């Protein structure tokens, strides 16, 4: 799972029947520091996200499992809208005891 920001929408009339009725959005993957990570991609939206929403998305075989038809040709699906990101970066606690 990764974070991303919704940067636009995609309209496709002719598409595989297993993804008919599914909303498509353009998303820009982000790091936890909110910096862009790689190129923007198109993803199926299952949570009614909108422009500028911060979301998290999944890839791989699981992307299709989030859809009503789980045998769909999909490799990126938005599965949640983020309310808050809490980065509490204190490094590794007890590093001296864990790494011998």
């Amino acid at each position, binding site marked *: *799972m990764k974070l991303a920001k919704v940067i636009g929408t995609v309209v496709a009339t002719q598409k595989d029947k297993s993804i008919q009725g599914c909303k498509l959005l353009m998303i820009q993957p982000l790091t936890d520091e909110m910096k862009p990570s790689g190129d923007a991609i198109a993803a199926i939206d299952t949570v009614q996200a909108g422009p500028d929403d911060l979301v998290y998305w999944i890839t*791989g075989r699981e992307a299709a499992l989030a859809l009503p038809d789980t045998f769909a040709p999909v490799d990126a699906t938005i599965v949640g809208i983020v309310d808050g990101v809490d980065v509490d970066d204190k490094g590794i606690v007890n590093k001296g005891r864990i790494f011998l």
Partner: protein
Amino acid sequence: MFLCRVKGSVTSTIKHSCYKGWKVLILQPIDAKGKDKGDSFLACDSVQAGPGDVVLAAREGNAARQILGKDEDPFHAVVTGIVDLIDVHKSI
């Protein structure tokens, strides 16, 4: 499976129904000496890990589904354990 350190967490109200009740953590992959390696990612937590912990993570759907849900749930990454000790004898 690989080693990560817990960097923080993500909260979300509107989400796919299978994610309800699961904590989502921000994980930073690390090497055998504890140095950061590669980009951070999100994973569901099954072991109550917290910031600063070193954890074992699986970034593969089948392991995630076995631990977290049913066969058809769209889980992709999961924290499978909290690391107590890493003892690397020698580097190659």
